[in-house]
């Protein structure tokens, strides 16, 4: 389990404080940024956190090659530029990249399928870290395996760098639908269900009791418009990540603000109509249905 620490004030690095930061991000938008200037634009627009990375997923997709943790110098500049939390990505299973990000003082590590996996079998053992982790999932079993390894926040994967929301919807509906069905199962069926979905029994039981994931659950991967963000919120996620969708669009500051407003007022079509007006060009999208499976990032990790 989590290794608690101590500072002069009290107990640090407990699971409660790790999961607690994610609770404070709810109802908000986390934006991918590649420069300190973009980070300031995101903060000005009302982002609850920024994800510092060298290339947004759309460019990672276009460039090909191995995608790794970003340059620590760049991450430090972004940390210095804003007052909101800063997240950064480590490769799946690359616990040394995560150690480096912890040493830099990032507030959350995203163990992300957007980067090239460093380990095809094992994810990072996240309980050992002082900083919290967010991990991607496509279904309930995957979400609970990550939480079992210590993830303090979950995001549905979607398909990053496409601007196509279809996979984000698929993964959110899958996770939330599985939780709804789990709530109807009698307790004697939970062990077999845990075996079927490959999830720790205790977490299956806890999820049934809570009627939701035991940690905060955001949507990610393909969200490009205010309507996309509100769609994910109405489906029942706690907040959204927007990657390429903002800074690959015609007017990033305006679009960022519109997505922030849409995430707060996700149930108010009048406001959604107002904020969706005159946003300029959205990012050029890729239909996920045209992507061969080996080019789909969501299939990375298990």
């Amino acid at each position: 389990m989590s290794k608690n620490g101590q500072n002069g004030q009290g107990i640090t690095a407990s699971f409660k404080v790790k999961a607690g930061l994610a609770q404070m991000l709810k109802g908000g938008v986390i934006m991918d940024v590649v420069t300190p200037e973009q980070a300031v634009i995101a903060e000005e627009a009302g982002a609850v956190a920024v994800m510092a990375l060298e290339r947004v997923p759309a460019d990672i997709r276009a460039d090909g090659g191995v995608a790794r943790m970003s340059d620590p110098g760049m991450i430090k500049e972004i940390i210095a530029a804003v007052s909101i939390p800063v997240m950064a990505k480590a490769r799946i299973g690359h616990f040394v990249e995560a150690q480096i990000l912890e040493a830099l003082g990032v507030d959350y590590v995203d163990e992300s399928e957007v980067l090239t996996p460093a380990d095809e079998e094992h994810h990072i053992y996240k309980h050992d870290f002082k900083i919290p982790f967010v991990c991607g999932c496509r279904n309930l079993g995957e979400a609970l395996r990550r939480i079992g390894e210590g993830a303090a926040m979950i995001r549905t994967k979607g398909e990053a760098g496409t601007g196509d929301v279809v996979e984000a919807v698929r993964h959110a509906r899958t996770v939330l639908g599985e939780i709804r069905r789990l709530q109807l199962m009698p307790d004697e069926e939970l062990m077999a269900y845990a075996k079927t979905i490959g999830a720790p029994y205790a977490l299956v039981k806890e999820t049934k009791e809570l009627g939701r994931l035991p940690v905060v659950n955001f949507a990610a991967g393909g969200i490009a418009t205010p309507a996309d963000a509100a769609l994910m919120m109405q489906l029942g996620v706690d907040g959204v990540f927007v990657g390429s969708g903002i800074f690959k669009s015609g007017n990033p500051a305006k679009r960022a603000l519109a997505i922030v407003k849409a995430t707060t007022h996700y149930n108010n079509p009048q406001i959604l109509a107002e904020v969706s007006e005159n946003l300029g060009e959205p990012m050029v999208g890729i239909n996920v249905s045209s992507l061969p499976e080996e080019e789909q990032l969501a299939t990375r990790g298990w």
Partner: protein
Amino acid sequence: MRVGVLALQGAFIEHINMLKSLGVEAVEVRLPEQLAGLDGLIIPGGESTTIGKLAVMYGFMEPLRRFAAEKALWGTCAGMIFMAKAIGDGRSQHGQPLLAIMDIVVDRNAFGRQVDSFEADLRVSVFENGQSKPFPAVFIRAPKLVAAKGDARVIAELEDGTAVAAQQGKWLATSFHPELTGDDRFHQYFLQLAGKDG
């Protein structure tokens, strides 16, 4: 009794669940007209820059000040920053909007980054059993209460004397998150300030 929780962003569901468990009607407030008919309002934890900017854009600043002149108001973490008259230590406010209601000065993220977030037990002077039964407080990238002036008084401190909660009449500010614990004494205390019997 009907209590609102400002639901622009942050951990508002946790407050609503706790209020409901205490038998009061709890509602999400996203637009200023939803303040009508409320006996009190909680401004939750979240990102204070996000909450402040959305509050300005949707015309909340004056309605909230008018509401606070008569009703109970409680800010947790980001909410405490939003209620403060000033952010201390001269650091840039990044154009951060403040309601400037309570005579307190706060310092944002004063305990450090997420790696420094912590849990600690507090003795709270205004609880009947506050000395014998410590309150389990959760601090997430928390602000510090640098000063309480005028009628504002400190009601809880860390062991080293750092002030972390204050009260001024019907207004309450905590730099930590009672809504993340199973202890509802702060919520009960707030409901008393809002006029709930017994």
